[in-house]
């Protein structure tokens, strides 16, 4: 499934593995594989016990699975009326058959299929964010936007390029997280002095390049093009471009697929100017608000 197909706030199916009055208990050896199989398939599942506390369900669908001793209605409405409850008896069924049964219920009642994609998008730590708008200026894929109160926000997370943490690399406050990233502090790990020093160095490097790494790339590309056009050496031009991309990829851990999918230089220039203007507007509004 493509990340672009993710719909926000779609109704979900929650599964309740019910053991208690009127339903025979599962053994531990049975319970764990059932839960794991459902989770791997993308279903949220709750396991009930006496005296234990579970989170409420506000809306959507709840599928109650049990080894019921009495017949249950196939479907019912919860008291609030916003939750449809389904009951299914899973006597004699193993984990695989239970997952199949849940899939059938999902299909039968046209509940969207869960999950299926790697959730990769930036998460802002607003305790650290200073609203400098560098991420907004930097991202070429319109992931960031500005809220009505002129604060940076993640607007189009589906636009984010899987495994690309580049915007977090330009954040001077280490305020952008990618929880699925391999290394700290981008993955949410605590930030130490060394991290801050390293991040500051990266910003300094960016500043040395003119404050805009894409502009630096364009300049470098243009210079290379000019030089190579004189030399009429396309192989050298290609090698230079590859060296530049490899260096960028290594410095910022940007996947090559993302670099390969960058817009054309003209589009980059146009997007960067629009983003910079929006960031500047927001910064000006914030400055005026502080005065």
């Amino acid at each position, binding site marked *: 499934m493509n990340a672009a197909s*993710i719909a*926000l*706030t*779609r109704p*979900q199916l*929650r599964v309740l593995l*019910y*053991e*208690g*009055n009127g*339903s025979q*208990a599962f053994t*531990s050896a049975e*319970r*764990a594989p059932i*839960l*794991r199989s459902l*989770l*791997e*398939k*993308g*279903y*949220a*599942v*709750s*396991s*009930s*016990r*006496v*005296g*234990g*506390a*579970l*989170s*409420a*369900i*506000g809306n*959507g669908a709840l599928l*109650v699975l049990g080894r019921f001793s009495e017949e249950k209605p196939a479907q019912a409405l919860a008291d609030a009326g916003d939750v449809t409850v389904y009951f299914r008896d899973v006597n004699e069924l193993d984990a695989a058959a239970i997952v199949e049964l849940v899939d059938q219920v999902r299909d039968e009642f046209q509940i969207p299929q*869960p*999950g*299926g*994609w*790697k*959730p990769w*998008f930036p*998460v*802002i*730590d*607003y305790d650290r964010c200073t609203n400098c708008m560098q991420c907004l200026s930097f991202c070429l894929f319109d992931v960031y936007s500005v809220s009505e109160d002129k604060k940076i926000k993640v607007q189009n*997370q589906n636009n984010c390029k899987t495994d690309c943490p580049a915007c977090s690399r330009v954040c001077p406050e280490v305020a952008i*997280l990618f*929880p*699925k*990233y391999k290394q*700290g502090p981008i*993955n*949410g*790990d*605590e930030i130490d002095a060394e991290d801050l020093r390293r991040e500051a160095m990266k910003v300094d490097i960016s500043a040395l390049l003119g404050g805009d790494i894409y502009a630096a790339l364009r300049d470098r590309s243009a210079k290379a093009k000019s030089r190579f056009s004189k030399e009429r050496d396309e192989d050298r031009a290609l090698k230079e471009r590859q060296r530049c991309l490899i260096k960028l990829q290594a410095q910022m851990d940007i996947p090559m697929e993302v670099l390969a999918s960058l817009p054309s230089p003209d589009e980059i220039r146009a997007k960067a100017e629009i983003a910079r203007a929006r960031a500047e507007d927001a910064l000006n509004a914030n400055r005026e608000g502080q005065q």
Partner: protein
Amino acid sequence: MPNTPRILYCHCAYANVVPAEVKNQVLDALSASGVAFDAVPDLCEMSARRDPALQELAKGGAIKIAACYPRAVVWLFNAANAPLPENGIEILNMRVESAENVTSALLPDEAEEPGPATL
């Protein structure tokens, strides 16, 4: 049982950032205990969808969350318009903690085999 913290387990199903042996051992221990718990396939995915279930999880009182880095979990909830309260939250990091440490923090000493529940 308002004084009993709820338990939320995240299976981190869509990436291999939580060691499989840790999350599976924690899930096995929860399954074998006498404690009720909620399990979700992937908190990141729920946050991306701004799943309303996160609001129910956030506003239901004390909760222990077995997932990943606390800073990531806090801001994932926040990104879904479901900020966690400042008190009564304990986040256990399965990316770096052992399964034993996570399990002992999640489960009260008196956890027993499942007893009857009411529906």
